[in-house]
């Protein structure tokens, strides 16, 4: 009797989330999987869907812009993830009981994270423009050959990288601060009695003890970089800028600018596969790190 009541209640409580899962996750994923083997411009209706087999994926391999987007993702990750994670750790370490007015200082670092992303991207677009404040500072420092941040392909990623690092630190500092508070104080006391210096304690105790958090932050930042859209879209405008473009931006352009729904679906599946692999690495890794946890 009770068991039956539990079963009914359980399924009723789960019904809305299951319904949403089927409508907005399972069906779309399968449908875009199907579309990735077709050519379709949407305007011609369902009848216009034309099966072309693996052609989309073959084309992807020769699509310069797509390959640039992948290459850019690697560069973005290499530049953004280490810097933003290391800066966050140092800031969190100092903020944790090594300063006064901790809560006010923490706020400073957190504000960029909660500010409107489009507004910030606009600000950075103006900050980095040829006659903008960044170049003004450089000119005052005596730089004569002022960088053209957006038109020079080798520099075009820098404003984006700066913006992403800047906005990501606030959140990561919070997570690190929580992790640091969980490190047993006895460890530090014991090390201090043994005569370990501050630096030694940081590298021999703090770093290993919070490695699960570091791992977690590296993974979520990596995934976030793969999904980069807003900042790149705003800062590079409407033209396809190969030196800064990203996978999501190209999916957006192929589908909603050019109406190549089949081709864009193939790209979406590549993105899906990449995120899948990164998440699986995370789940595997988490199990390994678990013994640090409690």
């Amino acid at each position, binding site marked *: 009797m009770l068991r039956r009541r539990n079963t009914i209640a359980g399924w009723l409580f789960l019904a809305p989330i299951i319904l949403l899962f089927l409508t907005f996750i399972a069906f779309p*994923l399968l449908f875009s999987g199907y579309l990735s083997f077709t050519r379709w411009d949407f305007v011609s209706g369902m009848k216009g869907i034309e099966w072309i087999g693996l052609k989309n994926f073959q084309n992807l391999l020769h699509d310069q812009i797509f390959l640039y987007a992948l290459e850019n993702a690697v560069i973005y990750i290499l530049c953004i993830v280490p810097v933003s994670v290391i800066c966050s750790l140092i800031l969190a370490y100092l903020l944790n009981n090594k300063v006064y007015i901790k809560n006010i200082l923490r706020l*400073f670092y957190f504000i960029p994270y909660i500010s409107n992303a*489009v*507004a910030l991207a606009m600000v950075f677009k103006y900050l980095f423009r040829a006659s903008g404040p960044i170049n003004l500072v450089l000119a005052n420092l005596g730089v004569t050959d002022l960088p053209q941040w957006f038109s020079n392909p080798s520099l075009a990623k820098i404003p984006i990288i700066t913006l992403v690092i800047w906005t990501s630190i606030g959140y990561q500092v919070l*997570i690190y601060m929580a992790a640091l508070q969980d490190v047993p104080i006895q460890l530090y006391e014991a090390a201090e009695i043994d005569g370990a210096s501050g630096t030694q304690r940081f590298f021999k105790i703090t770093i290993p003890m919070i490695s699960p958090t570091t791992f977690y932050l590296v993974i979520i930042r990596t995934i976030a970089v793969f999904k980069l859209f807003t900042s790149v879209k705003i800062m590079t405008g409407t033209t396809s800028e190969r030196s800064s473009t990203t996978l999501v931006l190209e999916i957006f352009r192929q589908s909603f600018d050019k109406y190549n729904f089949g081709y864009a679906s193939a790209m979406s599946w590549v993105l899906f596969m990449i995120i899948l692999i990164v998440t699986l690495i995370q789940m595997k890794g988490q199990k390994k790190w678990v013994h640090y946890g409690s």
Partner: protein
Amino acid sequence: MKKATVRRKLIATVILFIIGLAFLLPLLWMISSSLKKSSEVFSANFTWIPKTPQYKTYVSVLNSKSIPLLQMMKNTVIIAAATIFGQLLIASLAAYAFACIPFRGKNIVFIMLLCAMMIPSQATLIPRFVLFSYIGLYNTHWALILPAWFSVSSVFLLRQFYQKIPGELIEAATVDGAGHLRIWARIMLPLTRSVMTSLIILVFIASWNELLTPMIFLTDKKLFTVSLGINLYNAGDQDLINKVMAAATIVTMPVIFVFLMFQKQFVEGIMTAGIKG
């Protein structure tokens, strides 16, 4: 010995304060530029505080007919509120089922949700677009709200908190004849108010900042969100810069105020949520 630590602490405070100020420079520059004449913004003799602050710019930005920012803020608040309500209701019901109702089959659903975590929402944009076009929800706020009701991380987070509630409480309530709906509403929801608050703020910030989906699903300017509104200024030239920065300030400040008001709950929420996240 003691004196040395105080001094070290003071130095660290000053250093972090300066770095913190540097962190806020882009935002301060945004506000400063919004109060200048557009010709002043990139002038060679830069000042942080304009000689005569141009408050008029704010009035004209707020009254602009071509980019009705106030309307857009209203739209964004409506979307955020509907998203928060639906997402948290559905997530907390599911979390309750996972944490507190023993029944067969819930593991399958749990694994299903775990799998959903690996699917980036960007990979499902096209079918969602097709779906919404066919059922007539394209170019309505529902196209943004409905998919946002599905949030695995909210479910998992709430489940964690529900698991921490002592089982005796639920047993006692069951003995008193309370059904699950009642236990959920009378025990679980009130006891987990703090995590709910931080989820509300998190979801609010996310929907206030979203650009990709409004860009795809909304075409009617009357329905636009603030992110799309700012984006309309994106095509602008240098003459507009003070207006752009005023608009950027207008959409940034409310969120910062909301955050300042609920800072404590929010920070605590992230700190407990993020670790196990």
